[in-house]
């Protein structure tokens, strides 16, 4: 079990992210999910990483750019590509 926990621990974040640059293969996903179904400690780790991710994703509301800034950049883009000077 210790070896499997170690193996799983190294993959839980990639499993949750499902990032195209570092996907788990089908066998890894199957093996990891089987382990998470029977290991309380690793399941708890998965839940905690998931909760941290959810909490951090809420911070995104504070980094949504001000619409005024977006408009400024758009106007700047207009001037830049029309050669009007900036």
């Amino acid at each position, binding site marked *: 079990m210790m070896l499997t926990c170690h193996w799983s621990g190294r993959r839980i*974040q990639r499993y949750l992210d499902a990032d195209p640059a570092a996907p788990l293969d089908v066998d890894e996903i199957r093996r990891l999910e089987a382990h998470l179904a029977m290991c309380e400690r690793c399941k708890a780790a998965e839940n905690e990483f998931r909760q941290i991710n*959810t909490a951090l994703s*809420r911070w995104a509301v*504070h*980094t*949504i750019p001000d619409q005024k800034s*977006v408009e400024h950049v758009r106007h700047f883009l207009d001037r830049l590509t029309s050669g009007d*000077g900036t």
Partner: protein
Amino acid sequence: MHESEPSEATDVQAQNFRLYVEPEIEVLLRVASTLTNPSDAEDLVQETLVRAWRSVDRFDGRHPRAWLLTILRNTNMNMHRRRRPDTVADISDFVSTRPAFGVDPPGTEDEVMTSILSDDLELAVQSLDPKFRTALLLIDVDQLTYSEAAKVLGVPVGTVMSRLSRARARVRRHLRPTFVAATGKGTA
């Protein structure tokens, strides 16, 4: 700021440039805020666009976001030579109390946990080494992919993954007492 056009700018080039840039303006502003601070983000993005426009005739049109993020990073390094490109501004910019327009609220259970974690999470993230913190913010807050974050930081994807993994592990360790108190369970 000085105007500069590609050597043989055409209407088609200008039109293509707009097609590359317009969908990425919000991402560029968000990432610029993460790398600097909200008040400098607009200047950084505008300077980035000037540089991108100068080199548009050498861009093949593939992966405009990655192209623009790379230029953003280089521009930021040039504008703030004394600031490392992988450091981040004040964390309070991320956890201020602006209203949450435009973002779907999480489910009730997550909402409760998010609320419980809030202050501790801020402390945990603040205590991270800036290299780790920036990787965490770019991916978990700004929602960049590993590859996009690698472009912004100028490091390989593997380095981003390593920094991200260590950042999250440290945050989780910091929050352990909160998790234990909330669930009544100790974990690995």
